[in-house]
């Protein structure tokens, strides 16, 4: 409807959230949030003067995974580990050469200490320290039997660039903000200002009024999605392997539960402060935490896993990642679409029922 469209254009704050916020979020996900850990700061405590020990220390310094602070005494690195300026340190003991020579002592060749308060990074430090050691051992002593190894191949994202799956996920978060938060606020404001009463006295049915209100936000959502997608492809260099029309179809279907949720929130709260609280608690944060975007849904405990089915973003994140990185995989897209439609129907149904009692109170 034209009215809402004009209002969106007139109100700079709405434009801000529809245009600026998505760009900020996308930008941050593309550049600030990166799950590819590189250049982790560690210390290497070289307690031995042997040539072999120095060669191993050099191997640590040489890898692109670590940014090494070389020291002689472990007392220098312990405070730094506690303060968080180092994420771990490797100790090459004084008797490193002897241990290396004697097969029976090789059980503890070096020590790797990590900062377990950041489990992700700690894990990384441990794994890559072992890798460096293994690599160094192979080049240092040739007689070792080669151990079986995994040769990983990453489908759909060969260079395992985390941006490739973070950006589609971030799009889902952005669309949740536009769909749910904005609708909740706008409709709550109408209640606050009393414009709802005037509209309801016209012969247009309540549902028509609301659909009329939601339609511009639907279009705004689709537009924002197209702009964000273009941005993702061109600036952030995320491939789009699926088709545009499947992307728009999925987005349209996602906007149904997202707008429905926003509408429901506004009907229930009728007040902008409570509406924003609700939108935050039931829309934005779950889109972040429970959508499978940052954390694997399969690994969550079952009650939480069940609960994620009520989060529209869950279906959208999975669909978007597939559309961007894999292609139009209909066996995966269709069930997600059904999920979003079903949730949308539930939200609208409840909103409608609650609305009928709205003036009597």
């Amino acid at each position, binding site marked *: 409807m034209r009215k809402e469209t004009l209002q969106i254009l007139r109100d700079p704050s709405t434009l801000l959230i529809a245009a600026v916020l998505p760009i900020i979020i996308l930008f941050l996900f593309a550049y*600030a949030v990166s799950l590819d850990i590189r250049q982790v700061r560690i210390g290497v405590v070289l307690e031995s003067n042997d040539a072999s020990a120095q060669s191993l220390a050099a191997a640590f310094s040489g890898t692109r995974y670590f940014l090494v602070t070389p020291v002689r005494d472990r007392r220098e690195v312990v405070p730094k580990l506690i303060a968080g300026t180092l994420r771990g340190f490797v100790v090459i003991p004084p008797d490193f050469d002897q241990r290396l020579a004697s097969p029976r002592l090789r059980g503890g*060749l070096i020590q790797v200490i*990590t900062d377990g*308060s950041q489990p992700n990074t700690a894990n990384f430090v441990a794994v890559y320290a072992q890798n460096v050691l293994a690599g160094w*051992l192979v080049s240092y002593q040739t007689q070792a039997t080669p151990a079986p190894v995994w040769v990983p191949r990453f489908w759909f994202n060969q260079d395992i660039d985390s941006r490739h799956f973070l950006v589609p996920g971030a799009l889902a978060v952005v669309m949740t903000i536009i769909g749910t938060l904005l609708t909740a606020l706008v409709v709550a404001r109408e209640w606050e200002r009393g414009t709802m009463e005037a509209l309801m006295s016209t012969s247009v049915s309540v549902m028509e009024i609301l659909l009329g209100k939601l339609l511009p936000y639907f279009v705004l959502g689709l537009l924002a999605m197209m702009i964000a997608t273009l941005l993702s492809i061109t600036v952030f260099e995320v491939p789009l392997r699926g088709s545009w029309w499947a992307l728009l179809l999925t987005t349209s279907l996602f906007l149904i539960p997202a707008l429905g949720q926003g509408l429901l929130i506004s009907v229930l709260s009728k007040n902008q402060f409570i509406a924003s609280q609700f939108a935050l608690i039931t829309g934005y944060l779950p889109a972040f935490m429970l959508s499978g975007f940052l954390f694997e849904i*399969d690994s969550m405990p079952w009650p939480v896993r069940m609960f994620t089915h009520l989060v529209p973003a869950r279906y959208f994140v999975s669909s978007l990642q597939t559309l961007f990185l894999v292609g139009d995989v209909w066996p995966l897209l269709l069930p997600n679409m059904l999920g979003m439609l079903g949730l949308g129907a539930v939200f609208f149904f409840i909103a409608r029922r609650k609305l009928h009692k709205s003036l009597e109170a």
Partner: protein
Amino acid sequence: MTWFSPAMRALIIKELLSVLRDPKSRILLIVPPLAQLIVFSFAATLELTRADIAVYNQDNGAWSRLCVERVAHASFVHQMYPVYSETAIRQLIATKQVMAAIVIPNTASSDEAAGRSVQLQIILDGRRANSDQILLGYLTEILARLNAEPVNASPTISDLAVTRHWFNPNLIYQWFVVPGVGGILVTFITLLLTALSIARERELGTFDQLLVSPCTPGEMIVAKMVPALLIGMVLGILMTGAAAFLFQVPFVGSYVGLLLSMLLYILSVNGIGLMLSALCNTQQQAILGTFTLVVPSVLMSGFATPVENMPAFLQWVDQANPLKYYLIILQGSFLKNLPAAVVWANDWPLLVIAVVTLTTATVFVRGRLQ
């Protein structure tokens, strides 16, 4: 003392009542954040517990069967899908039925027996690169143990590099997540509370009433801080308690240090909220403004990914992000017994942010009396 003048007291009581008088809003302030802490803490896990894996075993040898069996019995594996073609793998992965597929070439067992190098293929779903890395780590460990079993008992690489994870020996992910989620939720609530406080009065017309009253802008700002400070502290302490007792995250640091830092942190968030509120004319602007601020500050706080991974420019911007400092103190207090000097090193930026933003907010309010 102006702090306890009747006007000051009246303002403070008014602010407290506006937030806390209604039992429903009291509940809304405390219960959802706690519920979210619990749900999110269980949800935010980077461990894998239920991985589905496809196996394409082209080899008939005993070693390859042993290998598959070991993987199948690993605790993180939920189900194995035997497949017999690459197309089948592609289909299973594309539809997300499996996380990864193992391909064992037909020469694997014979190569292993002959002491030649064995290369097993693992195909991973690039859409979940984070889980991929973890899965790869788990599988490497299995292969290493399998290799170490025979009689020659050559030590595995993980035996050679003795690894100790300080502060969190078993790398329990919740120990990391719970304090952080608690901190973020406190941020959201206190920021929203303060950001709306002035904007709401302006929208309802009571702000004019305040401006013509003898209350000074400084008094108004201090009074507006009180409820958010109080609720923030209560919530912060509740969150800390829930982390320590409900989630059993060990707390080895100093309570006093944490409480002091919490106070400074909430002050700085209040300052930001009030500054925003003094600038906005409507509640809607204030809410949208809050979002525009809080989303980046959470993303750049070091909670999702380490700060040092960010580009230098963003790290520089991040110096003004109070959440970054607070998370260091919070996580450090729980697990590390952070020395007072380190706590202080992260406290003083909070203090600077609080002083700057609160002063600016007061100036803005005074400026509104144009």
